C-alpha cells in the first residue's frame, strides 16, 4: 500500500542510481574510503619501516642537545644549545634574509618596472634585458654563481678589497664598520623621532589648511628640513658622537665591525636580484593596467604631472600591484630555503638538513618545517583577502 502511495506522490521516478544527490554522496564516500585506506596503508608501512630501523617517534628531541655549531646566529647559541634553539636560529635567519631581501627587491623592482616604461629607449632596453635574463635562469644557478663563482673567488684575507667607510670584501665575507653611538647620541635619536612626529602634525595641518583655504604647503620640503635639521642641530649642540668600530686585520682574519658571511651576501644578492625582476614585471603590469583615459582626464582637468601621478595614477596602480607583490614577497621567503645549497643556516638548512640528519626524525621535522611555511602563506593570504575586500568595498 505505502509503496503505491509513495509512487503516486513522488515525481516521475528516476532510477535510484541516476539521482544526482545519491550519486554525489556515493562518490564522496568512495573518495573518503580510498583516502582513508591510503592513509592507513601509509601509516602501517611507516610504522613497520620505523620499527625495522629501530626508530621511535615524538617531539622530545626538541629538548635534547643539538651538538652542532651554527656560524651565523641572531640569538645566543652554542653547540650545547637545544634543538629548539637551533630551530629558532634557523627560523630567525630565514626571516632576516627575507626581510632585507624584500626591501632591496622592492626598491630595485619598482625602479625596473618604471624604467621598462620609460620613454627613454636606452633605459627601457637595459631594464628589459635585465628582466629577461634574470627571470629565465634558475635561482639556484644564480645563487651558485654568486657564491661559488664570485664571492668564493674573491681575494683572500691578505689581499682584501677595501672600500670607502672601512668596508672590506674578501673570501671570508663582507665586513662593515659598526657604528658605536655614545650616550649623548640618544638625544639625536629623540630629535629624529620628534621630527617625524612634528612632520606628521604639519602634514595633517597642511591638509586641513588646503581643504579650508585652498593654499598648498610644501610638505615634502618640510619633511626634509625637519628630519635633517632637527637631529643635526641636536647633534652639534649636545656634542653627541658616533665612533665607528672598523674591521681590523688580526692574525689570519678581520675582527670587529659587522661581519656578513659570504653565504649571507650571496643569498641576499641572488634573492633580491631575482625577485626584483618579477616585481618589476608586476609593477609594469600595474601601471599599464591604469587606463590611459585616466591620465588624459587628469591632464584635461589641468593637473600637473606630479599631482596627476600622486592623486590619480599611483593609487589605482597600487591596487593592481599589491596582491601580486605580496605573493612575490612570499615567494622570496620560500626561495630563501635554497640557501641550504650554499650553506647559509636558515630554517631548511639547519632543521630539514642538519637536525633531520642527526635525529633521523624525518616525519616530525618535515611536518614542522611545512607548518612554518604554511603559517607564513596563510598570513599572506589573510592579508590579501583583507586587502582585496577593502579595495572591492571602496570601488562599489
Amino acid at each position, binding site marked *: 500500500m505505502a509503496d503505491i502511495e509513495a509512487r503516486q506522490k513522488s515525481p516521475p521516478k528516476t532510477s535510484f542510481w541516476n539521482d544526482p544527490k545519491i550519486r554525489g554522496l556515493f562518490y564522496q564516500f568512495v*573518495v573518503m574510503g580510498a583516502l582513508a585506506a591510503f592513509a592507513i596503508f*601509509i601509516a602501517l608501512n611507516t610504522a613497520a619501516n620505523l620499527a625495522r630501523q629501530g626508530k621511535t617517534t615524538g617531539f622530545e628531541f626538541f629538548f635534547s642537545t643539538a651538538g652542532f655549531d651554527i656560524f651565523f646566529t641572531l640569538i645566543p647559541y652554542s653547540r650545547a644549545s637545544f634543538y629548539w634553539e637551533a630551530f629558532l636560529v634557523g627560523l630567525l635567519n630565514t626571516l632576516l634574509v627575507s626581510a632585507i631581501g624584500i626591501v632591496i627587491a622592492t626598491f630595485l623592482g619598482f625602479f625596473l618596472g618604471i624604467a621598462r616604461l620609460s*620613454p627613454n629607449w*636606452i633605459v627601457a632596453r637595459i631594464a628589459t634585458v635585465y628582466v629577461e635574463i634574470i627571470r*629565465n*635562469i634558475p635561482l639556484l644557478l644564480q645563487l651558485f654563481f654568486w657564491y661559488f*663563482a664570485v664571492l668564493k673567488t674573491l681575494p683572500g684575507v691578505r689581499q682584501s678589497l677595501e672600500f670607502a667607510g672601512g668596508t672590506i670584501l674578501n673570501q671570508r665575507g663582507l665586513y662593515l664598520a659598526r657604528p658605536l653611538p655614545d650616550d649623548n647620541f640618544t638625544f639625536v635619536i629623540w630629535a629624529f623621532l620628534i621630527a617625524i612626529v612634528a612632520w606628521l602634525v604639519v602634514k595633517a595641518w597642511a591638509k586641513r589648511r588646503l581643504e579650508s583655504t585652498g593654499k598648498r604647503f610644501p610638505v615634502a620640503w618640510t619633511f626634509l628640513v625637519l628630519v635633517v635639521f632637527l637631529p643635526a642641530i641636536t647633534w652639534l649642540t649636545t656634542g653627541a658622537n658616533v665612533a665607528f668600530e672598523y674591521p681590523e686585520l688580526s692574525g689570519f682574519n678581520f675582527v670587529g665591525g659587522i661581519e656578513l658571511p659570504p653565504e649571507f651576501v650571496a643569498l641576499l644578492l641572488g634573492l633580491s636580484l631575482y625577485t626584483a625582476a618579477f616585481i618589476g614585471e608586476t609593477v609594469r603590469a600595474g601601471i599599464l593596467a591604469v587606463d590611459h583615459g585616466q591620465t588624459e582626464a587628469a591632464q584635461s582637468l589641468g593637473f600637473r604631472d606630479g599631482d596627476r601621478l600622486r592623486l590619480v595614477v599611483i593609487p589605482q596602480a597600487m591596487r593592481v600591484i599589491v596582491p601580486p607583490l605580496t605573493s612575490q614577497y612570499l615567494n622570496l621567503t620560500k626561495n630563501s630555503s635554497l640557501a641550504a645549497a650554499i650553506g647559509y643556516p636558515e630554517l631548511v638548512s639547519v632543521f*630539514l638538513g642538519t637536525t*633531520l640528519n642527526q635525529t633521523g626524525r624525518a616525519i616530525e621535522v*618535515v611536518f614542522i618545517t611545512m607548518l612554518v611555511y604554511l603559517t607564513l602563506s596563510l598570513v599572506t593570504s589573510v592579508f590579501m583577502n583583507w586587502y582585496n575586500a577593502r579595495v572591492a568595498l571602496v570601488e562599489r
Partner: protein
Amino acid sequence: MSTTNATKEISFVREEMLPEMPAPSSVVGPVAWIRSSLFSSPGNSILTIASALLLLWIMPPLYNFLIGNAVFIAEDGAACRVEGAGACWAFIWSRMDFFIYGFFPAEEQWRVNIAFALGLVLIVPLMWPELPFKVVNALAFFVGYPIIVFILLSGGMFGLTEVPTVNWGGLTVTLIIGLVGIVTSLPLGIVLALGRQSKMPVIKSVCVMFIELWRAVPLITVLFMASVMLPLFVPVGVSVDKLLRALVGVSLFSAAYMAEVVRGGLQALPRGQYEAAGALGLNYWKSMSFIILPQALKHVIPGIVNSFIALFKDTSLVSIVGIFDLLNTVQASNSDLNWASEQQAVTGYIFAAAVFWVFCFSMSRYSIYMEHRLHTGHKR
C-alpha cells in the same frame, strides 16, 4: 555676440582634397627618433648619457671575457690559467658529453639521441597551431612518448642493455624531469581543478587542501620530504628509486600550480557555456571533456606554458637531493683539477645559464605568441 554675422562667413566647401603631406623631420626619421626617445628633456638626456657610460663600462670587458680573450681550443687548463685569459670554453667542450648524458655509457648514448630526436618530432607539430591531428599528436606526446623514452633509456628489454637511473644525468635528466613534470602535472592539475570547482564538499575540500598545501611550501621541502619520507611510506623491503622520488615530488608540486592555472580558465568561461552544455543534455563528464575543458584549456595555454617555465627552472633543485641534473654535472665538473683555473666556475655557470635561458626564453616567447593569437582570435 554677433553669431549671425559669423555664420555667414563660415559657410565653406572644400573644392579639392588635400594630398597627404610628407611628415616633417621633427616627427619621422632618425633625428626625430633620437630626439624623442633619447633626448626629449634635460633629465632624459642625462639618463641617456649615464646609461651609455654604463654600457661602455660593462660591454667591452664582457665581450673580452666571453669572446675576445676566451679560450676556445685547449688540451687542458694550462691555456686558461694564463694571466688575462677569458672564459674557458675548451673546458665546457671537453666535458660536453658529461653535461648532456651524465654517466650514461658512451656506447649507449645513441639511445638518448633517438629520444631527443623523437621528442623534437612530436613537440614541434604540437606547438604549431595550424597543423591538424592535435588530439592524436597530444596523445602521442603525453602518453606514448614517455613510455618509449623510459624503455629506450632504461633498457633491459628488446635486447637493450640495462642502464640504471643512477647513470642517467646531465641535460638528459633535466629534460626528463621537465617532461615527466609536464606530462603528469597537466592531467593531475585538471582533475584537481575540477575537484576544486565541484559541489561535493568532501571532494572540494580534499582538493583545496592538496593544492594549498603544496603551494604553501617551497619545492625544496617537498624534495626533502620525497627523499626521506617516501621510503618510509612504501611496504617494508620495497626500495624507491632516487630519481623516482624526485619525480614524484616535482609532479605533485607542479600539479598544484597547474590546478590553479586551469581553475583560472574554468572561471573565465562565461556561465552560458556551462548552461549550454547542460541544455544539450550532456552529463558532467561529457560536457566537461567536449565543451568546457577544451575551451578553458585553450584560454590558459599561456598560463600553462608559464608554469612549464617555472617547472623547468625548478628541475635544477633536484641537484640538492643528489641527482645529477645539468646543474649538478656542471657543479661537479667545476672541481675538475685538469681544468682548474680562476674562470672555471664562472664559465661552467654561464654555460648552464645559457642552456636554461634558451629553453625558458623560447617558451616564454611561445607563450606571448599564443596569447597574441588568442586575443586576436576573440576579436574576430
